[in-house]
């Protein structure tokens, strides 16, 4: 049984190949996730990995990891990171450079903006199917909330609530810098 379970099981998978990207936006960057659905051994390890590349000034949408801690290690470039704890206090607000690492605890909110041509990182997460909950964008919390809830929660007009829901359109996770987006529209 052990032989069948472990000896023939796959143990590696490339996540640096851009053609394997799960989320890709030519103007913002890409992310590739390796979870236990792609590499079953990870179910046993209870870990997964995410490879990310972000172009200059592009963002990773504000989000939180729902069921895992994330250990981020920078392989190239630098970016500004803001991490917020459960009391709404800024736990980290600074730059992360090549060869530096930061631990993002579960549920803490995270916002990343690339400061270099290409900011590249790998994140090891402590769950084989780590889930992320973005605050804006296509699969976001804001999009899932009724307008009335947004209106009353933030004391904003209907138009503003609609902007919060739809301003980022179909973008998900990696976001184009707003200024270049405006230029694109113009």
């Amino acid at each position: 049984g052990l032989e069948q379970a472990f000896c023939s099981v796959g143990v590696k998978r490339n996540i640096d190949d851009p053609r394997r990207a799960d989320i890709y936006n030519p103007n913002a960057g890409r992310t590739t996730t390796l979870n236990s659905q792609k590499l079953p051994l990870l179910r046993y390890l209870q870990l997964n990995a995410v490879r990310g590349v972000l172009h200059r000034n592009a963002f990773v949408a504000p989000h939180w990891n729902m069921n895992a801690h994330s250990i981020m290690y920078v392989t190239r470039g630098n970016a500004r990171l803001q991490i917020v704890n459960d009391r709404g206090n800024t736990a980290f607000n600074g730059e992360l450079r090549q060869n530096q690492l930061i631990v993002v605890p579960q549920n803490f909110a995270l916002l990343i903006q690339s400061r270099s041509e290409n900011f590249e990182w790998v994140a090891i997460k402590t769950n084989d199917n780590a889930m992320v909950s973005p605050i804006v964008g296509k699969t976001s919390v804001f999009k899932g909330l009724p307008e009335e809830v947004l209106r009353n929660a933030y004391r904003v007009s209907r138009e503003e609530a609609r902007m919060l829901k739809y301003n980022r359109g179909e973008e998900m996770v990696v976001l184009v810098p707003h200024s270049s987006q405006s230029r694109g529209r113009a």
Partner: protein
Amino acid sequence: GSQSRCRIERLNAQEPRRRVESEAGLTEYFDEDNEQFECAGVAAHRRIVQPGGLVLPKFYNAHALTYVVQGKGIFGNVMPGCPESFQSFQRGDPRTSREEGRRGRSERDQHQRVDHFREGDIIAIPAGVAHWVYNDGEQPIVAFTVLDTSNNANQLDSNRREFLLAGRKGRGQHLGVEPREDSDDFNLLSGFDTESLAESMGISRDLAEKLRGRSDDRGEIVRVEGSFHIVRPSRREEGMSEGEEREREYEEEERERERRRLMAN
């Protein structure tokens, strides 16, 4: 560690030890530092939401089950990636489009599923999932919640944590012999600087400032001014009066009781 906390010689009945008041309700917390809660690896609280009150979106660091002691309302769990399946319009339908055009865009919306709840219901809230509650009834909602902080879903320490997505939590008052106050808790967005928030969301600085909610003193349960129109199915929309709706509910409950009686036999 948790086993050593379970060497309990005597158990005591517990009452809430801390109260946090909001504009349209209050939350009372049981003492998490008590060894009974530490032993079981849980935290508990009781929330009261006044009619017209909205519990602002938030999520917990642990799975939670809520029992509705009193009242009725609507709630939504927002799961990332789930479709906005409740829609007040249909794309591509020319009749609807014309109708929408006449009414203006103001009434359109689409969002994730919302559910009704009432007295006696249990509501499951997975860890890390944002949720909100609105009291559309005529009496206060009283709800009792237990968080399973020792479950594997919570990889932080065993403290209960509530992550607000809007508003700000008022100062907690400790009840009992030594009343004292806690400091304020802010929402998650307030920890980002206004510029970054505005740029990442593609919104103005003014709107980003509103999201941060630093000057919002309504607490975590706010009063909804005016109407609260969201997309949700209602039997009354199918031409059923309120009386008929109650009668239908009563019949369903009777059927359920009968089904349970037969199963017991």
